[in-house]
């Protein structure tokens, strides 16, 4: 549904996007993550036609944004990170105004606006002035506005930033419902646990490039690999430490009380081989497992540019 091919964008001397590629399948809820300045907002602004790419192209439903922006705009709903309000406009008028921006007027526009306000739980606020709504309500209104022309693709830039946990939860539920209706959703966010809960796919951008892209299953596999091994041994740890230090796939070793925490880059097969090596060396292993990881740890690992060394740290 949405494909970005070799996207490049330079602002002066700053390379914002450096050959970014991305594929969002139809019906996916795609989490777009990356550190500050990684190029998330530039990518989103290019997708919605607010920025022209220096190189590469963006296709929405097979239509090139740069060549046929009007056709693409009809297929995209955009929710920005900031929410602009008009003075002296009521919620229903705000919705009708944006409906008219898409050529919807009269009864059709009013019905569509009313239906969307009900969907986001603002139907009882239709006669309230927009500026008088809370931030959470304004953001829900912004989501309703983005859906006024019933677009198949919804693009959201940090939509839950600054919202309280309850509003974030409600917002998340609305997104799940939209996805169940067949909408393709691209959501950029810093709140990684939330993305892990709702997204079907994840893309991690760093320094203008896509450094990881895949389904949630793939990233969960990555999470397992990224998490350290927790090894518990009875008796002296010296033999185990000697063996671990010499192992080529061991990156870090930390001693946490009676547990040895090992940064291990190998897969499950390598884990088995390491366990066998320890047992063969006469180490009494009574605990051997991967620490439960999360999306945040993978994100930190992928976007960490400092080189890692084998270290030995004693934690109190």
């Amino acid at each position, binding site marked *: 549904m949405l494909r970005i091919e070799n996207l*490049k964008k330079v602002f002066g001397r700053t390379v914002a996007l450096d050959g970014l590629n991305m594929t969002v399948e139809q019906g996916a809820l795609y989490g777009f993550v990356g550190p500050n300045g990684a190029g998330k907002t530039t990518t989103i*602004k290019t997708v*919605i*036609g*607010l*920025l*022209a*790419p*220096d*190189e*590469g192209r963006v296709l929405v439903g097979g239509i090139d944004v*740069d060549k046929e*922006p*009007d056709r693409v*705009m*009809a297929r*995209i709903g*955009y929710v*920005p990170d*900031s*929410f*602009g*309000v*008009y*003075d*002296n*406009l009521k919620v229903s*008028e705000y919705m009708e*105004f*944006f409906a*008219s*921006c*898409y*050529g919807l*007027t009269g009864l059709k526009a009013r019905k569509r606006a009313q239906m969307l306000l009900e969907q986001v739980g603002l139907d009882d606020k239709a006669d309230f002035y927009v500026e008088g709504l809370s931030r959470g309500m304004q953001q829900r209104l912004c989501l309703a*506005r983005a859906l006024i*022309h019933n677009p198949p693709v919804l693009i959201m830039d940090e939509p839950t930033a600054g919202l309280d946990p309850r509003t974030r939860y409600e917002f998340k539920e609305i997104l799940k419902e939209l996805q169940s209706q067949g909408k393709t959703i691209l959501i950029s966010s810093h709140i990684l646990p939330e993305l892990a809960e709702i997204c079907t796919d994840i893309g991690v951008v760093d320094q203008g490039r896509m450094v990881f892209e895949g389904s949630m299953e793939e990233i969960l596999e990555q999470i397992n690999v990224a998490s350290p091994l927790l090894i518990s041994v009875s008796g002296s740890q010296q033999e185990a430490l000697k063996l671990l230090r010499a192992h080529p796939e061991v990156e870090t070793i930390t001693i946490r009380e009676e547990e040895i925490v090992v940064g291990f880059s190998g897969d499950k097969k390598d884990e088995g081989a390491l366990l066998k090596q320890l047992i063969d060396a006469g180490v009494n292993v009574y605990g051997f497992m991967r620490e439960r990881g999360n999306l945040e740890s993978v994100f930190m690992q992928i976007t960490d540019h400092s080189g890692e060394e084998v270290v030995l740290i004693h934690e109190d």
Partner: protein
Amino acid sequence: MRINPIYRQESRAGARSFKLPLIILGFNSVLAVVALLYMYSMIAQVRLTAEIQYSSFLGLYSFVATMEFVLLLFIIPGLTAGSISGERERQTLELMLTTRLKASDIVAGKLVQGLSTVFLLIVSSFPILGLVFIYGGVTMPDVGLLLLCYVVTAVLLGSAGLFCSALMRRSTMATVTAYLVVVVLNAGTLVVNYLADGLGEMTLTGGNAAAGWPMYLLLWNPAATFQTVLNSQMGSGSGLAPFFPQLERIADMGLAGRYWLPLSMALQLLLAACFLWGAVRNTKPGRRGRRRG
């Protein structure tokens, strides 16, 4: 008929604001006070001399018309200079640009909204200007021509305000720049003519430099056009005439002099079109750049 969504939204929001009634009240109050004071001074003169000079009543028309023109010069840039930059500051411009609206629709909506306010001011002031009909001397076509001059000025200065609004990120800067454009158009072109006059007088032959190219700059000057309208109706010496002695030499300019008024209005509308083109171009900065690769 499809009404421009921006115009409709602005009109609805504007109708709820106190700003518009206050502008209309202030504008007409100033004009009414000026007209009444002028009439009071005329009547006082009649009491003193026991003579009624009907030419003084024509002076009322020229005085009120000039006052209205000067007020419009101050009001029009203020109405349009914050329109697009204001949307940018409210962060609603991006939202509009991601709809099916084109940048030209946004600029057109803002222009029509600004002009409708100006037209409301002009129409609401008509009764004050119409005081002159009590005594005669000015016909309806004369007033019509004056109103046409106001409209052309409104379109030009409104478009300049929109251009500045699209160019500048902040409304304050856009407003300052719009007023600078007004000063350059109205005073700048005149100053160039004064300098040319001065240089002409310094030559040995004492040549008339004002009949040269600097005179053509006055074609772009809304105040010069307004004064040409007044001169055509009341003869020289009325309104802003003391500032525009060069306009008395229009007749020496051949074809351009013969069609000075329509030519100046056409050129000012052309300049307005250029400002609008610039406003549209700057409203959508992301699509300005060409591909490098």
